[in-house]
């Protein structure tokens, strides 16, 4: 399969969340373990968390997880149809 995105895919999630687990598994199947960046926001220090959330608020006023980044696109919530669209072209 062709490389679908210029940049390394990146996912922001919560380590406790079922939808984030599904998204992680989808990305692992597509890119392999370690083939994408995975940030569990709930496991960050308070300082890092505030920084990341500020960053994510640039894309949406109320960030929800998982948030998957494919180049300039941001997919909020588990959406395998959207993952297929951006990662399997």
């Amino acid at each position: 399969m062709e490389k679908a995105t210029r940049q390394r895919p990146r996912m922001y999630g919560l380590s406790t969340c079922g939808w984030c687990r599904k998204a992680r598994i989808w990305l692992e199947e597509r890119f392999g373990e370690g083939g994408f960046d995975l940030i569990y926001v709930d496991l960050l220090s308070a300082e890092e968390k505030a920084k990341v959330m500020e960053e994510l608020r640039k894309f949406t006023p109320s960030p929800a997880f998982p948030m998957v980044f494919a180049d300039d696109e941001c997919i909020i919530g588990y959406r395998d149809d959207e993952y297929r669209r951006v990662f399997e072209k």
Partner: protein
Amino acid sequence: MSIDPKRLRKAYEQLKADAEAGGYHLNPDESWTLGLIEGILTNEDRYGYGSCPCRLATGEKMEDLDIICPCDYRDPDLNDWGACYCALYVSSEVLAGKRPLQSVVERRPTTREKAADRPLPASGIRLWRCKVCGYLCAREHAPDVCPICKAKQDRFEAFVLPPDALPGP
């Protein structure tokens, strides 16, 4: 995240029994449901309260009261989407396979009105409302535990019915 399997199983059985007794249903996909309950227990250990596993908690209980599982948004989400935000709880229709499971759009407001900001009228009939399931009771104090959905006392909100709201004798 690692929760003792015995503790997890016990929490699952308890939650399932409470759900069914109150007319609610856990997601029949057991591995999904166990994964979420593991998340709730992890949050319980981490923050001191069983916050929603699919939402980012602040660590401040008063800020997160509305998202302690079962959250204030479960019932409207069950009505509109057939599942709660995490799909831990599902509606009878979804359970029976008459409605597909779909992902839920977040309805939690970004800024929340705090109950304390809202003054209560001085006279009238004081009522307590369970913010989780809507159970109402007229008594001096909110019950320790909601008799319907088992939510704790801090999930109740007070409101006052004007004296003329009910038909007279």
